[in-house]
């Protein structure tokens, strides 16, 4: 009996703990588990704001409940005539100035963080040799995929952003067609990609994505951009600086040393795909379709499907079924036969720069 009770206690404790953990969401996407300084600042502001707001709610609900219990007509009698109070200057002052005070407490850090997070002066900083001091990534949002160019490194990739940890990474954001919004929930708040101007901000990544569920952080488009807005996901891989440098080096090599896992597949690719997709990671943004130099390393097909050959082939056969409104044409059996498609999938899955 006692033992059973103990077990029950342990179980309920675990249940509470589980609920608490669930309340924090999933590490790769939750704003409750900040994985960078920007998200941490925002999380702290959230804690402060929530604290103040909880206080307000508690005070209001307390007065409300007491009034509700004490002043019911059923208790006071049908004939009870309350005193017709006009108001009270003192009370009006109290509930004007205390809220002003509370708002000020929130306003000061708000203004501070607004300027802090908006500071991109270091973006153009160069050392004595004229090399950029900070990593800058140019992000171009397109219907419905993301292009990431590293202008100082001469490389470009898509759908999966790769960044070094423990340093500020600066972003230039723009949209190529309609407005989108660039958001990595666990690393920091979003910034819109407008069509007519470049938006700049920074994020810092302070946790390696290695140990995460899929080995990546989740990125989202946060501005309605058409039918497949919900599927306009991207992923973020964060690496220690030395590994990042290795990755950059292998990216830069893809131009001269292409990876060919399946020669037949390469031939199909050269016939049907190369008009829009590049397989060399060296280049600039502005491509018709996502750069595929790192396709084999990626976590998803088309940004959101499980990363396997089956999905890849399904996708190529009917892109509209998976991502309505996207601009990639579908390829029927007349255009790419089943055998060719197998080879193509094999080839694409072999496009890797990571070991």
């Amino acid at each position, binding site marked *: 009996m006692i033992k059973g009770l103990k077990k029950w206690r342990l179980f309920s404790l675990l249940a509470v703990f589980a609920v608490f953990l669930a309340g924090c969401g999933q590490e790769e996407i939750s*704003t409750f588990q900040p994985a960078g300084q920007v998200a941490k600042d925002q999380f702290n502001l959230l804690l402060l704001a929530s604290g103040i707001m909880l206080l307000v709610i508690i005070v209001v609900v307390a007065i409300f409940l007491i009034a509700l219990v004490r002043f019911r007509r059923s208790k006071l009698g049908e004939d009870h005539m309350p005193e017709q109070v006009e108001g009270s200057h003192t009370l009006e002052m109290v509930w004007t100035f205390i809220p002003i005070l509370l*708002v000020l407490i929130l306003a000061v850090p708000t203004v501070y963080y607004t300027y802090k997070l908006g500071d991109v002066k270091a973006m153009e900083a160069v050392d004595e040799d004229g090399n950029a001091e900070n990593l800058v990534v140019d992000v171009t949002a397109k219907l419905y995929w993301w292009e990431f160019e590293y202008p100082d490194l001469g490389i470009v990739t898509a759908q999966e952003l790769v960044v070094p940890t423990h340093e500020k990474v600066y972003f230039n954001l723009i949209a190529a067609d309609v407005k989108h919004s660039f958001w990595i929930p666990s690393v920091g708040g979003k910034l819109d990609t407008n069509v007519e101007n470049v938006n700049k901000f920074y994020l810092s990544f302070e946790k390696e994505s290695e140990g995460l569920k899929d080995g990546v952080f989740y990125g989202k488009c946060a501005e309605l951009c*058409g039918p497949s807005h919900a599927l306009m996901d991207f992923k973020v891989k964060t690496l220690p600086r030395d590994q990042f440098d290795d990755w950059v080096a292998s990216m830069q090599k893809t131009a001269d040393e292409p990876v060919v896992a399946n020669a037949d597949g390469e031939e199909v690719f050269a016939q049907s795909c190369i008009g829009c997709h590049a397989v060399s990671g060296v280049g600039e943004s502005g491509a018709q379709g996502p750069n595929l130099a790192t396709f084999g390393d990626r976590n998803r097909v088309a940004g959101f499907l499980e990363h396997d050959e089956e999905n890849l082939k399904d996708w190529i056969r009917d892109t509209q079924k998976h991502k309505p409104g996207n601009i990639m044409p579908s390829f029927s059996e007349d255009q790419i036969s089943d055998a060719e498609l197998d080879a193509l999938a094999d080839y694409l899955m072999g496009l890797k720069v990571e070991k």
Partner: protein
Amino acid sequence: MSSVAQKRGFGATLWDWLTTVDHKKIGILYLLGGLFFFVLGGIEAMIIRLQLMTPNNDLVSAGLFNDLITMHGTTMIFLAAMPILFGFMNAIVPLQIGARDVAFPFINSLGFWMFAFGGLFLNISWLFGEVPDAGWTSYASLSLHSPGHGIDFYAIGLQIAGGGTLMAGINFLVTIINMRAPGMTYMRMPLFTWTTFVASAMILFAFPPLTIGLFFLTFDRMFSGNFFDHTMGGNTIIWEHIFWIFGHPEVYILILPAFGIFSEIFATFSRKRLFGYTAMVFATVLIGFLGFMVWAHHMFTVGLGPTANAIFAVATMAIAVPTGVKIFNWLLTIWGGSIKVTTPMLYALGFIPSFVMGGVTGVMQGAAPLDYQLHDTYFIVAHFHYVIVGGVVLAIFAALHYWWPKMFGTMLHEGLGKITFVFFFIGFHMTFLIQHWLGFWGMPRRVWTFMDGQGWNMANMISTIGALLMAIGFTVMVINIVMTTIKNERVGNDPWGDGRTLEWAIPSPPVFYNFAQTPLIRGLDTLWVEKMDGSKEMITPAEPVTDIHMPNGSIIPLLMTLGLFIAGFGAMFHQETSWGLPVLIFGLAFTFVMMAARSLKDDLGFYVTKEQILEDMKNEKGGRN
């Protein structure tokens, strides 16, 4: 025309409703029209929630989902919430200030028909299968990119409906300024009249930007304008500014009348005058003013820069202060009162904690850097449903129960009313509370589906179940309305027994000229003053019984709107068809001819004779139809 109801054929009754300029009938028309669109928007909401019940659901397609969210938002704001509130304003405000009608009865009718035809125009898009799909905000880059005529329906439909709103706003302003009975000073006006006044002033300044924005959009899409096309030197951010310069005040246009409704209900059912009346009025005006200073907080992530963001963040937080003043004054109104929990009071009591929660999350989003995380996630969806459902919709339901006897002469069933409340209130919190966390967990808004394995499944399921409860609650209310109407048990002047304001001093429903003699207002809570003085008539007349001048009904408002409605289709199809341009010209010409007819033909109205009034006053004692 006579106040004595005669048996009339269906045709005559229909003609009477189509041509009416009586503010009480227009109020009922607004209410019915608004409730119709409320049901439509509600069905859209249910489909949205069913689609999001499980991950990777395919109940609706991606394109259809965007149609649904766009039409849900647009319908609920422009075609449900505002018209229903206009319904109450029309039905009640003239009674509260002791007027016989609004200042411009003809324009009042025109306003209603523009709303009705605008709403119809927008929703006809469903029949064409080309539905607005860029969200109710219709941001320019996407709305220009959207194929088909969907966005055209949005631009023209809202243009027509918005014109009606502007007219209604101006009409209420003039009515409240000019038509108050003797003694009804500004500081004796009931809070519902005050909030109507401020909301109308906001309409006056907020709707012209929308009109201009929609014209720009119309020109861009249908007449090759380039206001927003950045490749031709346009700018999409301009649309965002224009939209939110309208859009933010719009939220206060909705919530202020709701505040007014609750102020009346708290005072009535606490049997106590509103605590801090002066402060309440001042807070209302201040909210109305500040409402125009904060639009860019909808655009913190647009990249306006830290200075703009910081200024708008602080301005936004400032609104919390007058809103807080209101909350505490309501609390102190019920404090020390004699609280009777009727159905309207139940809604008012439910409103306090719900709205406070919606308010504080608003302040949280006012903190710009925090908003970078919360913007366009399910957190904001939760926030604005907490203020709009927890504020405006609860107010609409409360007012429906509260003023139903005054508008229709019969009481909604209290028991069913409370059942409605329980289902709706629990369902509401169940639907939207959890959505705050969905936002924290990284779920963006306006997504037609979501992938499994992101930790959002359970919360979405809970949210959908809550929405079903809300639907059940609303269904009970519809049953209640139908049953009450069939039973038709007549009630007297002051069915709640604790009425404080002037509308409760006259029969339910009032005669078409409202007051046989214009009342003399002797203080705040006019009826309460009379009750405390033990006066038998409940109204101190300010004039002897004399002939009353009343306006004639007219079909012209409906025809004028019909012209605009036809012109709308012409504009939409003029690029691809040969008949488009002639239809556009015909529609506009038709409207102008109708305007000319109105201007050139003098309509002097008619007089209700003294004998008629004396007869009515005698009949009144024996009950009224």
